[in-house]
């Protein structure tokens, strides 16, 4: 008998009298001790499936048909009380976003204690406060948090993202559940931290003999953590099978497309962008940026966001700037756009120093920027046409030529003309990013700064946006500065890359050189942490010693 079996589950949401059918005939099995992955893109119904199992669906959801069998018994026939008794005790969830999963005005220990107290009450166990603290401390040690007392006393804002993710795992493990549901764990974290977290989950699943339902959109994560895979699309399971079968011999077009959209890190599929032999367009010489926090009662605090960075970007190239969060990538971009002033050093564009330009900032027709999240960088109250009209007003183009230019821009980014009248909420994530690109192109810039332009998008959408960017570069002769933390994407898209660590540039070169023979240990650690989808790629990754890791990565265990 399987631990969990979902049979022909149909589920719908009703809001404002509109019913959306979100799960259609979903069937899924998890045997005792099995590691199962549920993969799919945004809105495919993965998380809803897990919520149906856990009984945390929102009030407007209704199960229309099907069964959820837990150890052979249909959960949907049980009373609310009986289902509550399973929650957090027999089955637990590892929440997705460690940054927002704790109430900021309560200590971590308070959260853990309340969860344990109520779990004990529901399962009829008697426990004292001391006894509970003891159990919490043990579980925290189990997730490799070295100082449980300190973690318990801390407020959420005092812990790093990685540490909070570990606490979330501890929360799930506290009552020794049979099934662990992991909903995109570590996605919100840096790749090296994510790697640590996934390894930890793997170890714990093996040690404790848990069953795992891994919900993710990242196929690399799936390869690391699952043996059996279900592929979900628009509320339906389109394909399922053992890991190797799905990865090596996918049966459906959708699964093939999903796997094909992952940029390879090593091997034949890797694409080398041609190097540019043109003269440098943009030069940074020993650029430093420091932020000073003024204090009255103690010495001022100086943060070195960018330290002594020198690089040049040649005309027509795609220059990739890689690094983890807080490494100073975006600060560099802001400085060269002239939005922020460098504390020292020189920035020149076409040989002209930035400070000699009008207003100390780059001319609009020279450089434009595309931001990470099109959901927030577009004004939700303005139509596409209104959004595009802002840069056009500054472009020196006559008013009556605007509508023609708008049509031209939309055509460039592959959107139909009539999208001019649409509002952002009527567009998909990929379409929104296309609008953002069109907006950046409106002033005919020569340099486009792309600040993580695809990190908020699904892989298949990412692939199409990247393709669009490649085409645009050829068509319009653009130069890109591409900022990202996604090294496998950069391997294929950039003609040169630079790696940043804590404000410093630690390595620079063509992707071929850097990936074949990374010089700096940090680069090696970064590449080694990327979840890949084939064993061959895994084997090709550079090696990092634990000492090197310790030196250059922030530990999430301390």
């Amino acid at each position, binding site marked *: 008998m399987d631990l969990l079996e979902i049979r022909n589950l149909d589920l719908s949401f009703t809001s404002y009298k509109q019913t959306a059918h979100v799960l259609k005939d979903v069937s899924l099995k998890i045997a005792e001790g099995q590691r199962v992955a549920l993969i799919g893109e945004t809105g495919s119904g993965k998380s809803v499936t897990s919520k149906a199992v856990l009984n945390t669906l929102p009030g407007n959801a209704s199960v229309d048909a099907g069964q959820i069998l837990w150890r052979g018994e249909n959960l949907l026939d049980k009373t609310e009380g009986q289902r509550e008794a399973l929650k957090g*005790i027999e089955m*637990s969830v590892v929440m997705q976003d460690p940054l927002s999963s704790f*109430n*900021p*005005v309560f200590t971590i220990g308070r959260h853990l204690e309340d969860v344990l107290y109520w779990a004990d009450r*529901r399962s009829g166990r008697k426990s004292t406060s001391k006894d509970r603290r003891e159990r919490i401390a043990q579980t925290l040690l189990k997730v490799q948090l070295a100082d449980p007392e300190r973690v318990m006393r801390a407020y959420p*804002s*005092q812990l790093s993202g990685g540490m909070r993710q570990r606490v*979330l795992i501890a929360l799930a493990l506290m009552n020794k559940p049979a099934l662990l549901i992991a909903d995109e764990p570590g996605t919100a974290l840096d790749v090296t931290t994510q790697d640590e977290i996934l390894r930890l989950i793997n170890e714990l699943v093996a040690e404790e003999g848990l069953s795992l339902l891994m919900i993710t959109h990242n196929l690399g994560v799936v390869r690391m953590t699952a043996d059996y895979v279900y592929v979900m699309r628009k509320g339906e399971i389109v394909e399922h099978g053992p890991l190797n079968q799905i990865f090596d011999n996918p049966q459906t077009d959708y699964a093939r497309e999903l796997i094909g959209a992952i940029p390879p890190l090593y091997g034949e599929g890797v694409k080398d962008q041609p190097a540019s032999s043109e003269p440098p367009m943009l030069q940074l010489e020993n650029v430093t940026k420091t932020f000073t926090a003024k*204090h009255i009662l103690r010495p001022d605090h100086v943060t070195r966001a960018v330290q002594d960075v020198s690089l040049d970007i040649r005309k027509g190239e795609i220059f990739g700037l890689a690094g983890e969060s807080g490494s100073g990538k975006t600060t560099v971009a802001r400085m060269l756009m002239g939005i922020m002033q460098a504390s020292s050093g020189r920035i020149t564009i076409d040989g002209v120093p930035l400070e000699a330009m009008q207003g100390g900032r780059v001319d609009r027709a020279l450089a434009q920027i595309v931001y990470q999240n099109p959901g927030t960088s577009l004004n939700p109250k303005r139509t596409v046409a209104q959004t595009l009209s802002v840069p056009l007003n500054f472009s020196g183009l006559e008013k009556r030529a605007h509508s023609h230019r708008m049509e031209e821009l939309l055509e460039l980014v592959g959107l139909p003309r009539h999208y001019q009248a649409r509002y952002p909420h009527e567009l998909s994530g990929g379409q929104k990013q296309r609008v953002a690109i069109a907006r950046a192109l409106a002033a005919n810039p020569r340099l486009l700064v792309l600040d993580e332009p695809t990190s908020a998008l699904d892989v298949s959408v990412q692939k199409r946006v990247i393709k669009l960017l490649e085409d645009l570069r050829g068509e319009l002769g653009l130069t890109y500065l591409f900022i990202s933390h996604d090294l496998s994407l950069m391997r294929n898209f950039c003609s040169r890359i630079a790696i940043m660590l804590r404000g410093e540039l630690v390595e620079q070169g063509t992707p071929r050189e850097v990936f074949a023979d990374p010089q700096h240990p940090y680069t090696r650690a970064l590449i080694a942490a990327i979840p890949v989808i084939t064993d061959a790629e895994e084997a090709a990754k550079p090696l990092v010693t634990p000492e090197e890791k310790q030196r250059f990565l922030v530990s999430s265990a301390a």
Partner: protein
Amino acid sequence: MTSGFAEFLLRRIVGFAGVLLVLALMIFILARVVPGDPARIALGPTASAEQLAELREEMGLDDPLPLQFVNFLGGAIRGDFGNSLISGRPVAEEIAGLLPATLELVLATLIIMLALGLPLGILAARYRNSWFDAVLRIVSLAGVTMPSFLFAILLQLGAAYYLTDWPILGRMSREFSDFSGATGLLIIDGLLAGRLDITLDALRHLAFPALALSMSGIGQIMRITRSAMIEHQRRDHVQTLRSFGVPGRIVTFRYLLKLSAIAPLTIMGLEFASLIGNAFVVEMVFSWGGFASAGLEAVMQKDLNAVMAVVLVSGCFFVVANLLIDILIGLIDPRLRMKEAR
């Protein structure tokens, strides 16, 4: 307390001192620009030119304006606002005698505002979009839009008709009029003296003025609490606790409440200003005999020294109240307490 929070408070104190300084300057200029010679007001229309010149000399009215301001400021810091133009007694003394009455009223009002506004806001959030929420919405709108003197008059009339032995004027009944205590707050003095009858009597007198004064605050706090609760309810951390089976009432009343209390507390600090303004009128209606109604009288009679003092003391009230609220919010929210001033 971390040095970050200490620094935050220090900045606030400096800021508030600046606010008071500007306030003092403005009220001083106003007092010197309005038509009417203070000395003439003090002496009345029958005084002779010599008497007038003498008093002007004594009050320093012939000094250059900047010097007058410095003297005024120096006096204010020492608690000396000169003599009342009407009664001739020191203004500070007069205010000190009236202050406890107003303090008692304002404190009671704040307590009612929180005690009713917060729970009603929580309930409105919990049963949002129900008939209960709809009724509260209308009630709170009425509370915010209707002037507090209207409530005062309605409550007074209602009490006069239906609760015939309920006191509707003054702070306490005549039989206790020779009672006086250390703090001047009758409720507390009554308790201190072991005279529960006095405390009870004072509470009965206090109930309606405080209720009338708190109406707009209740409405505001309720609305703010409701929206803060609803906003935080959607957050992931609520999902986390619910996913592990922590009961909804614990999540609401322990976790959400503390987080959602920050916004209404902030509002309360701002509300304080209009509270003092409204107290001017409500005190009149209930013959409260407090500092606020004395302020109103001073304005009507052009007792400029008293007006300046009343304005500055109200300003101090406002500033101190907001500082206390800042500290309170710091106690609730560790992010503020531990923040590194960026």
